[in-house]
């Protein structure tokens, strides 16, 4: 290749690299302190920091098959569909640099730079967001089934087993206290739409009380009648006991046919004690969230924070018919098996619009729920298999230390090369500086994330990068010792060193490729840095340094000695 072309190519590569690394405007979408999304434009070098340097969260999700069995063959397909949903949910939530990808066949990995509220992010991806509308029971079906339930619980020894874990010994005082409270409790409660049925509720509660007094069983003793039909209060410390009981198959079988007992998201506080509401609802929903068209968070003085939703035409029609049939009934809005707020009474047929009251939850919660509803339900429940959270200070500290180490390593290598190879060492150092430039540019244009192991790999590769130069220089020295002229010695040196350089670098690339294939997160970053480094090192040591030599030979024609 003519010398002119060589120089042009190197200059072009440098220009390209500089352009790739030139600071540019990057728009970052992030949340401010109030949790509001905002766009922010920053001018910066387009090198992406990995999670361990930027701080943030990493989650690995897998199909949760603890409650329902899912065939392994179905998991892959379910994960594919879940991936879309999770991505949509996080796009609306996180920063613009959120990465959601499939890993292997059965896992979704999520990395959200800059966000460190694990609880919230977890909720956002773990919530299945299966929305259902069900009618609460007004017939007192559960009350009638209580003796049977108590018997089942007793037979299977379920309560002794479960109450052991809850470590709550004050079971009976709590129940006694509540009976006294129940009548006086109404006035202390906030005003609800349910006041119309207060009389009915009072009647139900007395019947439940009398039942409990007779049986005093392990199941019924957990429940206190609420203020509306189908509503029960459970001492907050015992909700987990009840939920565990309800998961038991024999208990589930003893429940009234076609009915379910579901916990609410709301708790009620009565004279310093908190109770959670449970509702008896029809198993069959009158409507599901499949036909949801949009959902928006809102807040008003009447209901506090709400999520307003709109159904599509088909959904709206079904909903209108169904609610028309149930005027005067209470409709529970159920999300992932939990009743959202207190079921409102259906005044008249409802069309396409409705709202979910969030109780005392914040606007941020409403935002998240709206987001999750808009993105649709997850086809399968997911659970977090791995989570990592890195504070922002740790990343900054790592960057700073990585920089120091890099600068010192480069300086040491430069000193060694200059002392040992003099003029030729200088050419190698020139090549090394271009090597650094090319590697960084390659990383920027691959959009690869720089991680701490990546920095370590980079520092290391600086040490290894001069290896090719060392091989070539040693060969040139040998040729010079054999009495060759400077020009021939350089030619022969490069030629002889080539097989060793190629073989050793290819084997390293193969190892790096395996690392990339099997690595995750930070290790992947390391592999990318290594691969970029090897290519840049090959280009600089073989091509760039050679060109430097040719330039030098051209300028000092007939050079008899070479400083090497």
């Amino acid at each position: 290749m003519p010398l002119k072309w060589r120089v042009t190519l190197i200059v072009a590569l440098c220009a390209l690299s500089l352009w790739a690394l030139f600071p540019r405007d990057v728009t970052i979408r992030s949340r401010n302190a109030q949790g509001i999304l905002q766009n922010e434009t920053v001018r910066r070098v387009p090198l992406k920091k990995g999670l361990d340097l930027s701080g943030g969260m990493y989650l690995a999700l897998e199909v949760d098959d603890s409650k329902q069995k899912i065939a392994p063959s179905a998991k892959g397909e379910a994960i594919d569909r879940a991936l879309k949903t999770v991505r949509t949910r996080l796009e609306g939530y996180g920063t613009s640099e959120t990465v959601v990808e499939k890993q292997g066949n059965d896992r979704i990995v999520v990395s959200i730079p800059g966000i460190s509220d694990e609880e919230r992010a977890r909720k956002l991806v773990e919530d299945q967001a299966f929305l259902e509308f069900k009618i609460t029971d007004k017939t007192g079906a559960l009350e009638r089934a209580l003796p049977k339930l108590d018997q089942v619980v007793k037979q299977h020894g379920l309560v002794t087993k479960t109450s052991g874990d809850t470590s709550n010994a004050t079971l009976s005082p709590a129940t006694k206290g509540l009976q006294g409270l129940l009548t006086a409790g109404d006035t202390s409660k906030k005003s609800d739409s349910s006041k119309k049925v207060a009389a009915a509720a009072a009647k139900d509660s007395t019947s439940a009380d009398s039942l409990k007094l007779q049986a005093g069983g392990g199941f019924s003793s957990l429940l206190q009648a609420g203020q509306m039909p189908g509503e029960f209060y459970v001492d907050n410390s015992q909700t987990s006991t009840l939920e565990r009981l309800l998961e038991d198959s024999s208990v589930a079988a003893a429940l009234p046919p076609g009915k379910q007992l579901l916990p609410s998201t709301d708790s009620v506080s009565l004279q310093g004690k908190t109770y959670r509401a449970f509702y008896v609802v029809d198993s069959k929903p009158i409507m599901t969230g499949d036909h949801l068209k949009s959902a928006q968070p809102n807040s008003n003085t009447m209901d506090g924070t709400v999520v307003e939703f709109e159904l599509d035409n088909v959904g709206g029609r079904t909903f209108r018919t169904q609610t028309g049939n149930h005027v005067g009934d209470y409709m529970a809005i159920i999300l992932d098996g939990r009743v959202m707020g207190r079921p409102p009474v259906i005044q008249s047929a409802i069309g396409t619009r409705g709202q979910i009251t969030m109780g005392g939850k914040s606007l941020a919660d409403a935002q998240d729920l709206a987001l999750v509803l808009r993105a649709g339900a997850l086809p399968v429940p997911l659970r977090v298999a791995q989570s990592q959270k890195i504070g922002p200070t740790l990343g900054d500290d790592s960057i700073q230390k990585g920089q120091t180490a890099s600068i010192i390593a480069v300086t040491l290598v430069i000193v060694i090369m200059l002392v040992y190879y003099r003029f030729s060492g200088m050419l190698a150092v020139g090549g090394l500086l271009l090597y650094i430039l090319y590697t960084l540019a390659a990383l920027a244009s691959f959009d690869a994330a720089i991680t701490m192991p990546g920095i370590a790999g980079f520092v290391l590769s600086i040490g290894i990068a001069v290896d090719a130069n060392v091989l070539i220089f040693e060969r040139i020295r040998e040729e010079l010792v054999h009495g060759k002229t400077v020009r021939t010695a350089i030619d022969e040196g490069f030629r002889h060193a080539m097989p060793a350089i190629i073989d050793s670098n290819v084997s390293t690339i193969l190892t790096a490729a395996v690392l990339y294939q099997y690595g995750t997160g930070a290790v992947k970053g390391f592999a990318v840095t290594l691969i970029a480094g090897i290519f840049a090192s090959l280009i600089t040591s073989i091509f760039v340094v050679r060109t430097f030599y040719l330039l030098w030979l051209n300028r000092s024609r007939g050079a008899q000695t070479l400083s090497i």
Partner: protein
Amino acid sequence: MLRILHDTSYDFIKFWKQSVIGTIAFIVLGLILLGVHAARHNGEALNRSVEFTGGTVVQLHFAKPADGNVVRGAVDAAGFNGAEVTTFGAPTDYMIKAPPKEGAVAAANADSVGAHIIDVLKQRAPDNPATVQQAQSVGPRVGQELTTKAITAVLISFIVTLIYLAIRFEWRFGVAAVIATAHDILTTLAFLAMMRLEISLTVVAALLTVIGYSLNDTIIIFDRVRENLKKQRKESLREVLNRSINETLPRSVLTHATVLAATIALLIFAGEVIRPFSWIMAFGVFTGTFSSIYVAGPLLLWIEHKWPRSLDTQNKGQAKARSEERKRDRTPVGAP
């Protein structure tokens, strides 16, 4: 021109017995230490990170140097009894490693674990606020998977390199190089046991880099052997090997010097997070150099002795020279 170890003719191969004994002793010592660790740490011979074992790890940073007993007590009080509490680089930083909860399928909430410990610490040492620097939680199944993946990665990189070397050189070189590399893994494991370094994914990456580096070194020497064999000198393979090692010696010294310089910079300046990585790389420079000369070399001679190359598999002139040499010597060539 400044020259180090130029034009030497050391008989490296002569010391193969001593070096084999030395390296086996090193590996055995490492294995014994692994046994000791296993007995001390409930069967956990290698200090594996939560990425492999599953569990939760929380890194806390205190405003002032904190008393280890106070931290320990707070961790116990927060309900993480079996947790391991160690300082992390400085007395202001602590690493808390809790084993996975019995029967748990999913990862614990690392965030809340950290917050819980901090709450307890706030009550016990209100004048020394702590912050969570890093928290990680891994479900037990993921841990198992990552272990399998790491082992698969090492094995696959072995096979791929073996195939590559078999194509570029020939199978004898490939086998010798791969066994030398396997030796490096063993010595590095022994080193890990001696230093009791934590084995994380990053450390596995470092191990693979050591493999690459060591292979690189072996290839440089073998490339010389390949070249010198073609020169039809009437030398035994042992002599060719020694000559090749001597010829590549200046390169070895200089490259190892630059890599070691970079590694030491990492070790001293790059901080605690990457320190295990740096240690392994530093050790890797030594074990890689050693194995290229004293494991790959003698192995190649041994393989050559056991399965001498036949006439049709090699360069004709070279074969002729070597078969003549054999006839003349009437002694097995290359037996170390």
